[in-house]
């Protein structure tokens, strides 16, 4: 059994990925179909409106699918179904017009995405760390580069005993993991993967995500308190200090793009950057570029990643706030951490780096967007779609890993110093400068266009350098890794 699995491991892995993507794609596609049917039927529809809405009947949908009603925008317009198929599909599509169905689907999607991403990211982090350290990392479980390592770890963690420490405050100890995990999950409700891929398009989406980052800290605090362990306590206090302090520069850095675009709705912010690479907000003027950097650093501190990983500094605090946790409760903290890492990366992408748009102007693909199914799919890959946001998010997660495996840890007083004495004044300064810039320099003026061009050039050089280094590293991957490792370990 094992050997068979090992042989077909890579296909299983790839099919799994494809299936996950498919599961994620399908609801959006189907919902879109239903929505276009309603549009075609002349009913108005808007996502977050309350009030009376005409509903489609199964019969409407069947007629639509059979082609008895001509639709203009529906993808189904290009396909003709037979009667029985149409009936079957009609029953599948009918519930999708109700909000509750979509919400359930969204929740399932968010939970699924977070868990899968955490498992992927843990495996990937181990691979990244290994590569940086001339090792190979997980190589055995599952076959190809140990892709099933996280699955195996998850199984192991599920089987582990759920240990309660003598003298721990049991209800709080239990609750802490959830209090840490739920906000990390909750922030994905307002996080758009693309303009249409969002569970709830809140008009205050940005602050909601910000709030969720803040509430998650309580879990860590409570975990440290309830563990009845002095190291956990130290970790919790460090976390509280760090988070409360870094929320302020984080907030200031967020204000800079908000001031430029004038909205808190993330989908609007994203769609304002659809005009190609040079319209990405970070490249609009130098202060936005600086704000992007400040945001990333502050977000790093909020995600308690190295060099700001003081709450779990293992050389000082054993394991910090989760010293006493075991099994699945322990895993929940990591799920939360990786979810927050991705959210921070995705937020950076949405606010500064073109959201779900590719560097190509979205206008070029406008005709594909309304074309047949394959053109729509291609549009999602080439111009704008959730794949781009997930890709950018993963890139920023990678940067966080890269920093973690390179830099030493900062001391607590230095963390505070960096926040209060450096980050905060800098963020305020950037905010002020951006205010004056937006006020005095119109984006169509010579100065505005020159600043845009320079920043775009800087960004382009950075992107090209990263791509170049990656290709160089990949081509020479055998040479860069220590010879011992290549010779002695399996899978080389």
């Amino acid at each position: 059994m094992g050997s068979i699995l090992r042989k077909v491991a890579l296909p299983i892995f790839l099919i799994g990925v494809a299936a996950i993507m498919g599961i994620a794609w399908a609801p959006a596609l189907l919902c879109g179909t239903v929505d276009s049917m309603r549009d075609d039927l002349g009913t108005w529809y808007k996502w977050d409106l309350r009030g009376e809405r005409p509903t489609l009947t199964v019969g409407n949908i069947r007629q639509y699918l059979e082609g008895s009603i001509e639709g203009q925008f529906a993808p189904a317009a290009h396909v003709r179904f037979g009667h029985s198929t149409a009936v079957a599909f009609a029953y599948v599509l009918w519930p999708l017009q109700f909000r509750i169905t979509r919400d359930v689907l969204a929740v399932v999607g968010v939970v699924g995405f977070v868990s899968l991403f955490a498992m992927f990211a843990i495996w990937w982090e181990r691979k990244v760390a290994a590569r940086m350290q001339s090792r190979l990392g997980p190589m055995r479980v599952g076959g190809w580069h140990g892709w099933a390592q996280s699955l195996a770890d998850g199984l192991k963690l599920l089987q582990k005993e759920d240990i309660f420490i003598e003298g721990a405050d049991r209800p709080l100890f239990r609750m802490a993991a959830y209090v840490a995990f739920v906000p990390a999950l909750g922030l994905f409700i307002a996080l758009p993967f693309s303009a249409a891929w969002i569970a709830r398009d809140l008009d205050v989406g940005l602050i909601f995500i910000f709030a969720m980052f803040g509430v998650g800290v309580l879990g860590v605090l409570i975990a440290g308190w309830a563990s009845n362990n002095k190291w956990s306590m130290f970790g919790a206090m460090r976390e509280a200090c760090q988070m409360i302090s870094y929320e302020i520069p984080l907030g200031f850095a967020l204000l800079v793009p908000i001031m430029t675009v004038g909205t808190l709705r993330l989908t609007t912010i994203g769609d304002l950057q659809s005009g190609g690479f040079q319209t990405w907000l970070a490249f609009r003027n130098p202060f936005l570029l600086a704000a992007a950097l400040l945001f990333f650093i502050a977000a790093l501190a909020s995600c308690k990643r190295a060099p700001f990983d003081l709450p779990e500094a293992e050389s000082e605090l054993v394991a910090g706030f989760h010293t006493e946790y075991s099994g699945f409760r322990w895993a929940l903290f990591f799920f939360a951490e990786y979810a927050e890492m991705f959210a921070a990366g995705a937020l950076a992408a949405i606010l500064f780096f073109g959201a779900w748009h590719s560097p190509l102007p979205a206008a070029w693909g406008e005709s594909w967007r309304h074309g047949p199914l394959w053109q729509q799919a291609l549009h999602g890959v080439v111009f704008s779609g959730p794949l781009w946001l997930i890709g950018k998010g993963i890139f920023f997660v990678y940067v966080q890993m890269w920093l973690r495996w390179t830099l030493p840890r900062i001391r607590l007083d230095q963390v505070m110093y960096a926040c209060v004495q450096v980050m905060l004044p800098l963020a305020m300064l950037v905010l002020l400068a951006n205010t004056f810039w937006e006020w005095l320099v119109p984006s169509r003026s010579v100065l505005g266009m020159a600043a845009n061009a320079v920043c775009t050039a800087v960004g382009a050089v950075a992107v090209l350098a990263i791509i170049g280094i990656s290709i160089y590293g990949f081509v020479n991957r055998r040479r860069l890794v220590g010879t011992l490792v290549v010779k002695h370990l399996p899978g080389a």
Partner: protein
Amino acid sequence: MSDTDIHSQREAPPGTAPAAARELRTEEMLVNMGPQHPSTHGVLRLMLRTDGELILEAIPHIGYLHRCAEKIGENVTPVQFVPMTDRLDYLTGMNNNHGFSLAVEKLCGLEVPERGHYIRVIMCELNRIASHLVSFGCYGMDIGAFTPFLYGFREREYILDLFEATCGARLTYNYLTIGGASLDLPEGFVERLAWFLDYFEPKIDEYNNLLSFNYIFIKRTANVGVISAADALAYGLTGPCLRGSGVKWDLRRCVPYEIYDRFEFDIPVGVPGGNAGIPPEVVVGDSWSRYYVRMLEMKQSVRILRQCLKQLAGGEFRAKVPRTLKLPAGEVYLEVEGVRGQLGFLVVGENKPIPRRVKIRGPSFCNLCIVPHVCRQVLLADVPAIVGSIDVVMGEVDR
């Protein structure tokens, strides 16, 4: 806990904290750091009396790895005791073998043949590099940088491969023994060693770029745990810890033993920051200086090894040692420059094959006793930085 006044509190000598700080002081907390703690390098246990993150007092408790090495030394012959010395400072087995063998040879008046001397120096210096690599990597870990650890171990593997080819063991060698070395160097050893030296020397600069001159690393270690030269002498610090305090003292040069007077090498010491590429934050005797002395010592070891390879003589590698070696009455105390400091052996003979007493002066034991003196009014995160820079191996502290 107020974070802004940490520095003022650190500067204030204990007991004279400003009035406001005394008023705001909360309960003191006793925390056990170790014996199972990631950064206590084995089974050191520190009792920390803390006020928030501020350490008021750190009391080391040792003895968790006590294996009665000295009692064993009184019950076996010196040749049988050599393997036991491997297990003292388990990272520097060769140096320990060497020190004990020298002491017994001095007591019995044995002469080591020429080639034996060179083999000993080669092995000791290689082991010094191997041990400093571990120290470099672990210190990175203590500060929170993971990657240097793996790099240090990667290079150490090459050295252990050489040791394995020579004596079959990778950690507890029992190779340098009374009268010389127990085996000759294997075929091709010299070429492999020469290759390794060429490979390794540029790596040191790479590590300096990666860790030593990293801004965060400097901020974490410079001006932390400053030990003055006078304190270092009073507390019996030796080795890189003493040299980090600016005392240019190395037994290999100051009280020459073996054949170290035939080689040219420098004694790296801690120097004040700002000159010669040393970061301006650095103070003589701080953690960074102690750490950096080790990095420079690796380069000097490479230099010694190069000269060794050039001068390496042929011939016998071990003197004729009687099967039952009788230790004459009297005692001898001999110190060698071990990796962590001066490793001393007192051997008392009484005209029997078994010594009356074997006393081991472990450099880690003597270096560790300064911890309570230095870990005062520092932050919790500084404790690993200080203990790590003193670089103790508990096998030698507890013996």
